[in-house]
């Protein structure tokens, strides 16, 4: 695997507070990688260290082999960063903003690519509008466009879809997916877990500056989630004691059982029959990332 981004033992402190507690992680070229975790986990801080906006206290970060501190100019050329904060320069129009950003990367005649980005992000008719006159979702899309002007091989999106409506979110993902298919490495943070589940091939789950889980999306789902069996018991009946250990949640007259494997279903039904408990309704839920997330992030703190 050719490594696109490598974090090796990255520690970042703010005073006494440890925001990144020794992050080591390699992301391969061409991956669609998800960085998930609750608020304050350290996702943005990690991205800031990668982008050179923050300086790690320990450890080393490289982009396609280029150290982000010693070889910062090459590293930054290889990176496109969509920041989490909605920022803009109120002096300029959308097109001017993109032209200026291109020029910072040494690109003087970039209008063809700028037009293409504007088209894919559905901003063509706003090209000559001043940044101040855009809606929040439009400003967010301009941030995406700004990150792409220099066609960076590694694209980092820090919650790019916050505040973007459903239709445009689909459009944005089509575009990012296409970039990924063309060989760009994508690193994404998002709080929309369905998004991460459908897009990301591999996921790191962070909490309090550490990586709690790192695996392919499929493996994470299989390892930590499994299917859930939702049962609606006949009126007045309760779950047999034998099945209590598998109970994950009770919602009104529904109980949710965890099934590690699908063939455990037969055993559950047999137990219910033997206990004489009637079932009014039943359905199977496929594994989902939210479930994995809750389970891993909800784990008690591991003591170092």
């Amino acid at each position: 695997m050719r490594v696109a981004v490598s974090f090796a033992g990255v520690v970042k402190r703010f005073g006494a507070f440890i925001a990144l507690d020794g992050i080591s992680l390699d992301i391969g070229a061409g991956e669609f990688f998800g960085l998930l975790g609750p608020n304050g986990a350290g996702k943005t801080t990690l991205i800031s260290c990668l982008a050179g906006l923050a300086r790690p206290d320990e450890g080393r970060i490289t982009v396609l082999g280029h150290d982000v501190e010693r070889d910062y100019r090459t590293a930054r050329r290889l990176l496109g960063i969509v920041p989490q904060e909605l920022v803009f320069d109120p002096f300029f129009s959308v097109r001017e903003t993109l032209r200026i950003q291109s020029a910072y990367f040494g690109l003087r005649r970039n209008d063809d690519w700028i037009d293409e980005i504007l088209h894919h992000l559905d901003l063509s008719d706003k090209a000559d509008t001043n940044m101040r006159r855009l809606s929040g979702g439009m400003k967010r899309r301009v941030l995406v466009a700004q990150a792409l002007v220099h066609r960076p091989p590694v694209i980092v999106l820090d919650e790019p879809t916050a505040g973007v409506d459903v239709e445009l979110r689909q459009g944005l993902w089509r575009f990012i997916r296409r970039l990924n298919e063309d060989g760009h490495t994508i690193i994404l943070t998002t709080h929309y877990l369905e998004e991460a589940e459908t897009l990301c091939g591999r996921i790191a789950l962070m909490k309090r500056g550490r990586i709690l889980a790192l695996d392919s999306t499929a493996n994470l789902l299989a390892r930590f989630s499994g299917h859930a069996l939702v049962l609606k018991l006949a009126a007045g009946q309760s779950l047999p004691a034998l099945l209590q250990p598998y109970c994950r949640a009770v919602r009104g007259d529904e109980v949710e059982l965890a099934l590690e494997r699908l063939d455990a279903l037969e055993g559950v039904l047999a137990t219910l029959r033997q206990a004489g408990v009637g079932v009014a309704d039943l359905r199977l839920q496929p594994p989902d990332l939210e479930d994995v997330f809750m389970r891993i992030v909800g784990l008690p703190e591991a003591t170092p």
Partner: protein
Amino acid sequence: MSGHGSGFAALFQKELLRFWRVAFQTVAAPVLTALLYLLIFSHVLEADRRIHGVPYTAFLVPGLVMMAVLQNAFANSSSSLIQAKVTGSIIFVLLPPISHAAFFWAFVAAAALRGLVVGLGVWLVTLPFVQVWPAQPLWALLFALLGGACLGAVGVIAGIWAEKFDQLAAFQNFLVLPLTMLSGVFYSIHSLPPFWQAVSHYNPVFYMIDGFRHGCFGVSDVAPLQSLAVLAASFAALALLTLSLLKRGWKLRT
């Protein structure tokens, strides 16, 4: 230093565009202020007073021009940086591969240029009232450029240091304004008591104005070469300091 693709040209152009877009505030307003100074001071002070053999109103013009150059150079870099920091748009220049040197020179050059534009404006509007034709225009231009560059660099430091607009205002009101006002804009230091004359010689801004005045009248309080040496040394010191701060990412990169 600022070779091809370092980002200098792009950042410089963007900085020019920024102040030119709001030229009414950044150029017209300071020109008007300087004109008011000229009218008030020349009216209040007796008309037949002469300094260095020059009528007072004429003596005032180079001081006002240079004050405009210096204050606007400072305002340009400092306000651009604080604004970008407060709104967060500073990341647009922190993410690209712009070298420290290119960053420094772009802000300083744009600041000096804004200073020159405003200074030129001040000179033009004073022409109907009092005609000062520079005796040695190249000296005048050199001092205006170097002075603007110095204050542009001070503006870069102040803009990076300040976290809020009022901190920047304090920097301007308690440092930049007194240094320019007390540097002989409105008087020749020979008219001061000996103690204050001596103090003035420690104020680099004094040499900027005195050197510029030499360019205008061919006479000055100190020799122009001495002023030039002081300015060149001041700018070199400011440049080295600013570059090392930028290299360290002081207050810009956490």
